[in-house]
């Protein structure tokens, strides 16, 4: 019996597709993902915050199943992609969107007023952060919007190119470009423009 089993195994191995069922590719892919997470400094708390902000933003435009929203990092070839998967119930119509935007704007103004009363320096900081957050999700919403019209399930993705040379020396600032909110502080003006445009349109 042994001889026959050996023979069978040899023959089977000969014809077996090379890559697919190999456990090493599973390991390689899992490892790439986990290292991506290790190398960026995105803590679960920050991810959760990001998720919450994305929900707030997208729900202005879409009616969706918030509980089923998934936010994941995935490996695509050499790049790491931020995959956002949301089951969309329906896209809101123009009136609803405008209403939602107006409401958000009113809310923001109310917040700003409240903040004005507090310490000025502190307020500036807060505003800066607000803009960062909006910029982070701005790209998301654009692609999400378009896709939502076609599919009932939209996937917004923001690819973040990993620097070819490792960012070793930058460990403390760290994380791939585009993922770290801290790196966004430099361009608040541009962001302001973009956000006003969306409000008007």
């Amino acid at each position, binding site marked *: 019996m042994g001889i026959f089993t050996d023979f069978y195994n040899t023959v089977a191995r000969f014809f077996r597709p090379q*890559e697919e069922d190999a456990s*090493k590719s599973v390991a390689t892919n899992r*490892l790439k993902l*986990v290292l991506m997470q290790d*190398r960026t400094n995105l803590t679960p708390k920050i991810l959760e915050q990001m998720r919450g902000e994305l929900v707030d933003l997208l729900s202005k435009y879409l009616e969706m199943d918030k509980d089923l929203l998934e936010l994941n990092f995935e490996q695509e070839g050499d790049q790491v992609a931020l995959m956002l998967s949301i089951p969309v119930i329906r896209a809101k119509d123009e009136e609803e969107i405008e209403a939602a935007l107006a409401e958000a704007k009113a809310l923001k103004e109310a917040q700003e007023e409240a903040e004005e009363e507090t310490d000025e320096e502190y307020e500036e900081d807060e505003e800066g952060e607000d803009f960062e957050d909006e910029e982070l999700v701005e790209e998301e919403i654009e692609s999400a919007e378009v896709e939502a019209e076609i599919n009932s399930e939209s996937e917004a993705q923001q690819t973040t190119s990993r620097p070819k040379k490792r960012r*070793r020396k930058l460990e403390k600032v760290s994380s791939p470009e585009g993922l770290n909110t801290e790196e966004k502080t430099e361009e608040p003006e541009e962001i302001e423009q973009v956000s006003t445009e969306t409000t008007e349109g």
Partner: protein
Amino acid sequence: MTGRVIVITSGKGGVGKTTTSANIGTALAKEGYKVVLIDTDLGLRNLDLLLGLENRIVYTIVDVIEERCKLKQALVKDKKNPNLSLLAAAQTRDKSAVNAEQLKDICNQLKEKNDFVLVDCPAGIEQGFQNAVAGASEAIVVTTPEMSAIRDADRIIGLLATKEEIESTKLLLNRVRPKLIQSKEMMSVDDVVGILEIPLIGIIPEDTGIITSTNKGEPIVNDENALAGKAYRNVAQRILGEEVPFLDLDEPKGFVAKVKNIFAKLKAKV
């Protein structure tokens, strides 16, 4: 003379740091260079065992730091090779007995009179690691083709990059099993290098001879026939700046494997 201080580290335990230290040290000493091995794994020392020097240790690194002896007195000469000596770790103390500044000072003193100072780092990323790295200007990161070891190595590589004194970080891939790589059950050398993205300095095949060499307290580089010994000798050559090709572990042996290889190549072309 100013020698080179190289730290051998890994993050994860049990991947072969100490074996690597013992073998590279012995190989360099055989080439005629003066080498000191420092065991910085306080409380869990093993380098003395791998070198077969466990019965000759009188003073340890902690005795030197606490000035119970002179540095020279604490260096234990190897049985076979007078070029090689060991500064043993204290077995009865923990990592807090030494600080980074003290270790750096010892490394600086030793490199005055030796060509190479190899620092065997403990596992982990805490004080012991910080101490071991303090005096070094080069690092060799040891890992095996397993996920957990690679992940830890990645962390270590990240930490080493924040150290300005470390000028070069190289990868040594240990316990490679060519058969498992061929059957795609183990990550290949290219896979690992692709993930960690640092230059490779050695590929050491899994070798049962390591077990017997440890039993005898004699590094495997002394065994002219062992494949792992040859691989370690090659690493020493590369440290010395020679360009030595990596051992070809992938070449399939036997008729069936060769035929299969030809088919695989044809398939790749189509």
